[in-house]
């Protein structure tokens, strides 16, 4: 067991999978200099310029070329720098990568991983801060992964690289420096399995990505006040782990979904609606969602913070869920 960062965990995943499988390669802008955040530092020296490929600033062609390269027997890792830039390649991802296997009647598959760093990070403003995971979860054909810890970034990225369908892999920029224990040897985290980050019986909090950590801090505060919440980190949004979520809500009878992204039409709505449809009779309180207001993310901290879900708002929401209902 070694301690390392979320960033280095992803780097280790790429190294291990490239060593294991000669068909894995990575392409994107500036990869020879380590990538914009250093996720690929030293990899071009290890694997050469063919397998760690610097590309033009051509997001559509990066994504589209990966589709073609995947169709011809390689397993590309696409680096998009910022998830916001992947919007220049929506046709290539949504119309091409996601649909090719189905549209062509299963004649082939498109095994590719699209790494798109998401989230609010250091006054990055409206075009470098978004979390658009709900868009991808909406698209048949895509797997959507949102790792939140160093160990999960290692294990989930390795699983994503081995997956035979396109995976949108959303690392959170604010977690790059997060440290945690990494298992020695082979560490694979299965896609589609949530983690119970903290056990509890009062309220089920379902979250993913960086909000896991905010939820856990809020949970500590609540615990000190005698309220034990269960925090479920989905880890994979499609397919999401219904069994773990439903099992927890059946025990607690209360659900709070916490997401960093805009709440309106966010993935939290899918969780909330699914629980409301399936577990209506188990619920002791209406389901709650917390997410960002429907505003672009601002530059100035005082404005940017208006888009953040805070520990306090989580604590307030939990308290509201467990408060005895009063007659109207």
């Amino acid at each position, binding site marked *: 067991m070694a301690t390392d960062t979320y960033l280095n965990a992803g780097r280790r995943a790429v190294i291990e999978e490239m060593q294991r499988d000669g*068909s894995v*390669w990575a392409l994107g802008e500036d990869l020879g200099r380590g990538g914009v955040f250093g996720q690929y530092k030293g990899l071009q020296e290890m694997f050469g310029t*063919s*397998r760690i*490929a610097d*590309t*033009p600033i*051509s997001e*559509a*062609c990066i*994504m*589209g*070329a*990966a*589709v*073609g*390269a*995947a*169709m*011809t*027997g*390689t397993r*590309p890792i696409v680096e998009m720098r910022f998830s916001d830039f992947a919007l220049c390649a929506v*046709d*290539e991802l949504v*119309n*091409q990568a996601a649909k*090719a*296997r*189905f*549209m*062509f*009647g*299963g*004649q*082939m598959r498109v095994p590719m991983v699209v790494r798109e760093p998401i989230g609010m990070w250091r006054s990055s403003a409206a075009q470098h801060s978004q979390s658009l995971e709900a868009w991808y979860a909406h698209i*048949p*054909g*895509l*797997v959507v992964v949102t790792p939140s810890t160093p160990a999960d970034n290692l294990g989930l990225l390795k699983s994503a690289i081995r*997956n*035979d*369908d396109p995976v949108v892999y959303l690392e959170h920029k604010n977690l790059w420096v997060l440290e945690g224990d990494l298992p020695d040897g082979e560490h694979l985290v299965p*896609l*589609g399995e949530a983690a119970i980050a903290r056990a509890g019986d009062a309220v089920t909090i379902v979250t993913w990505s960086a909000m896991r950590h905010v939820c856990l801090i809020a949970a500590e505060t609540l615990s000190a006040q005698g309220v034990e919440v269960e925090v479920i980190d989905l880890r994979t949004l*499609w*397919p999401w782990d*219904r069994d773990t979520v439903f099992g927890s809500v059946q025990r607690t009878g209360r659900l709070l979904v916490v997401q960093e992204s805009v709440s309106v039409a966010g993935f939290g709505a*899918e969780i909330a609606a*699914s629980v409301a*449809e399936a577990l209506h009779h188990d619920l002791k309180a209406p389901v709650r969602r917390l997410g960002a207001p429907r505003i672009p993310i601002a530059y100035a901290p005082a404005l940017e913070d208006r888009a953040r879900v805070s520990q306090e708002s989580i604590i307030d929401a939990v308290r509201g869920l467990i408060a005895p209902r009063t007659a109207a």
Partner: protein
Amino acid sequence: MAQDNGHNLDRDRFGAMLQLMHRIRAFEEAAIAAQKDGLVLGAIHPSIGQEAVAAGICANLDRNDLLLSTHRGHGHTLAKGADPLAMMRELFGRAGGTCGGKGGSMHIADFGVGMLGANGVVGANIPIATGAAHGLKLQGSDRIVTCIFGDGAINRGPFLEGLNWARVFDLPVLFVCEDNGFSATTRTREMTGGGGAGARAESLGIPAVAVDGNDLVAVDAAARAAIADIRTGKGPVLMHCRTYRITGHTAVDPATYRPASEVAAQRENCPIARLESALRLAGMADGDLARAHGEAAREMTDIAAQARDTDWPAPEAAYTDVQDMGDPRERAF
């Protein structure tokens, strides 16, 4: 001009290519007729009048080479070696179609013959073809990729990104601009700045050759030279083939945006008629020429009849080939 060189034509080779062009045209005529009968379900984009591009390019490809096509891709697909019955079944939405009835005309693909798909989005095949070549190069393959797109595609960003990429990485790609003059229903020249496909390719350092796309012999010769260069590792080449779309944008588009006289003149310039003239000069008998046409028409009429008698796909197939993970039926109903 091909007609002037007719005496020197290789009758076997060009006789076979004439036969292929007849088969492409007969396939599309059968499909248009079947659409009127309600058997072809969605839109089809005929390539009638453009057959020399498909035939002349594909005659110079190996079966293992790869081809990516457009929404107007029946001819390319047939020329690459796909089974026309499977293609017709696909147009009819039937079991046994090239894509099991999941794609239709705009998504015909036959990976078994290296045909990596028509595409419903203009120009979208360019980055994919480029990436396919990139993948082949990474694997040390000696196969090449041909990417056929229309004149409208050169005004989309992926054209620039894909061609630049192919040059930067010296990829084995033959880019073919099959220029039928129309971007859907608008004349491309009115929507295009500068010198067009060839000039844009050359500005990126990619050699470009312009050819009369209705002259099968010229297309064949240009393709052979370009492909030979690509196989020696010189990187991408662009061929600009000027042709003309005899039908409207789709089979049901009456194309009233152009004068009838223009279409009539272009019918005289039809690549099949021109190759027939050349072959006649080379000594092919009228009876042989007529037989080529008749055999193709009979083949495709029979195929349409067989496709009509094929079962629909099992409804459950709607849920297969989506992705390995997750149940696509979840929360659907």
